[in-house]
């Protein structure tokens, strides 16, 4: 492909750990090969070059502060295709755990007695929203590459598909499908609470295959049967309180938005 035919691609980040961009760099040789087809015009973590002319934008991170809004809107305007990269961008990830707390409480815990100063003029640049939000709470997102961190093979699959004008096929099955197909020993057999039952797969059951529970970093499957999940936890004699906390780690955005909870207020008391 001649140089000028290369598709221009940009990477951006908002509040995140930047692990997803690192996962892209971790593709190493494959990343190098990809550069035969794409021209990276923006990737702050790796290069100094900057440009506003790009076709595809990969955006990592959650929207957490007022200054993020014009920035993401500008990216949306510039990009023909906007891809949310990683759990922070697709559904809030651990950033949204703060959504579970009252904002005043968060401030208090972090600022102590200085929390009143938060409203002052000098603090403007550091002002944050009450909620950490995924990108699609603010702009239209064309494709979602889920996971914390992303599975970089899936990232490759999406890039390749987009370059060829094909719609990327993103998994909609539960983590259990891939986990069982690998013949893994289910973590419920070891008395753990695994969220793979209702969480979206596509990660090749990364965590359960390493002996760690699925924490639901790719969000829930469509219409998760939370009611039943709750009963399963009870039937197995596991802690509902614990399960609830686990559910919140990556999915607080969706849980608060849809008012989903395992323990309702009555039971809490």
């Amino acid at each position, binding site marked *: 492909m001649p140089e000028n035919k290369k598709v221009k691609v940009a990477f951006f980040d908002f509040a995140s750990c930047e692990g997803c961009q690192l996962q892209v760099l971790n593709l190493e040789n494959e990343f190098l090969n990809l550069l035969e087809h794409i021209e990276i015009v923006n990737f702050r973590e790796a290069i100094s070059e900057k440009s506003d002319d790009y076709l595809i934008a990969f955006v990592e991170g959650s929207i957490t502060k007022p200054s993020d809004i014009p920035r993401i809107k500008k990216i949306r305007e510039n990009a023909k295709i906007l891809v949310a990269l990683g759990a922070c961008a697709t559904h809030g990830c651990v950033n949204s755990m703060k959504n579970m707390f009252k904002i005043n409480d968060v401030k208090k815990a972090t600022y102590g007695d200085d929390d009143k100063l938060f409203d002052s003029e000098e603090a403007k640049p550091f002002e944050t929203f009450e909620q950490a939000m995924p990108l699609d709470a603010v702009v239209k997102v064309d494709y979602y590459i889920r996971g914390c961190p992303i599975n970089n093979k899936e990232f490759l699959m999406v890039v390749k*598909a987009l370059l060829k004008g094909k719609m990327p096929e993103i998994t*909609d*099955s539960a983590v259990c*499908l891939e986990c*069982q197909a690998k*013949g893994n*020993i289910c973590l419920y057999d070891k008395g753990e609470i695994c969220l793979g*039952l209702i969480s979206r797969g596509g990660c090749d059951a990364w965590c359960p295959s390493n002996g760690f529970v699925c924490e639901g970093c790719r969000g829930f499957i469509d219409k998760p049967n939370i009611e*039943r999940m709750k009963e*399963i936890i009870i039937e197995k004699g596991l802690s509902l309180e614990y399960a609830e906390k686990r559910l919140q780690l990556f999915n607080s955005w969706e849980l608060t938005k849809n008012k989903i909870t395992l323990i309702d207020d009555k039971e809490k008391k």
Partner: protein
Amino acid sequence: MNKNKVKEKNKKIKNINLEYIMSVNVLKNFIEVLSTKYKTYAPVNKEKRVVWAQIKNFNEISRDYIDGIQTTILPPKYFFFPPNEKLLFLNSNNVDYKKNEQIHEPFILFGVHPCDIHGLLLMDKIFLENYVDDFYKEKRDNAIIIGMDTMPNEWNFSKSAGTDIIDSGFDIFLIPLKENKFYIKIATKKGLSLIKNINGLFPLNKNDKKLLTEFYTEKNKRYKRNVDMHDLPKLLDRTYESKIWDEIGKQCVACTRCSIVCPTCYCFNIKEDYYLNLIEGERVRTWDSCLRQNFALVAGGHNFRSSLKARIRHRYYHKERIFSYIYGKSACVGCGRCSRDCKANIKPDEVFNKLRQLEIKS
């Protein structure tokens, strides 16, 4: 292979019927010899479960499996219809596809349960009839099946499913007996060639026959789960609107595990992907499940089974009816894997019982 050929092959298998008795030590020796000649896979312990793995000697085989405490996590379908299989290589510039030709060597599956052998024969119906699935067939043709009867585990209801006894679909069949003996039956020429150099096979004497009867009496006694499975397709037809499906729909969480571990679930997905040159690539098939949300979505956005109730009911209807139609018998072989592994506690035997009871009541 068309229908007739399959039948012919089955007939041939039935031609040989040699029965012997051997001691555990002879069996041990037998396995050691086999495993030097062929890759031999058998149920082995992994943590607290049982999985298929390559073995070199008898002691590696799971005691739990032989004693009928539990079965393997994945069924034998895994060997013929693997969860991820590269089917074709492709070239988008030339619009060209090539078959991914795999080299297959004969291998042994040791210790396959009667119900799992029934499962394989059902899979043969799907993959080898009408249109022959070459990928399945190539592996299937290379498999040497050594079946083994065991006590039923607590989830197994193969007696109800009529799959506790098997008379074809294996090359050799074993039954563990008391007094450290094994009954061995040779059913094919292949089986015959395997035992050719084995010393220590004896014809069954009276005592052996008694032990054999004892085994079956004990086995029948050990079934904890019984369900009337006669006429299932019709029963299901009559209870399509039953409120039991609403209940089960609420119970299921769509994790898809039941279909993954089932010896006769065969849904698959096909995907294509490019290599990094964006010219070549491959076509891959992966296990799929009808419990997945968008399994029955068509262009235009219509989903024929969008509710969980519809999907779990479909699993039962498809299982019980499609096979009765082509095989004359339900596709649930009663292995109990899905009962064991469904965290939502949905057990086919209980579902069938409930449907039957509800009908009797009304």
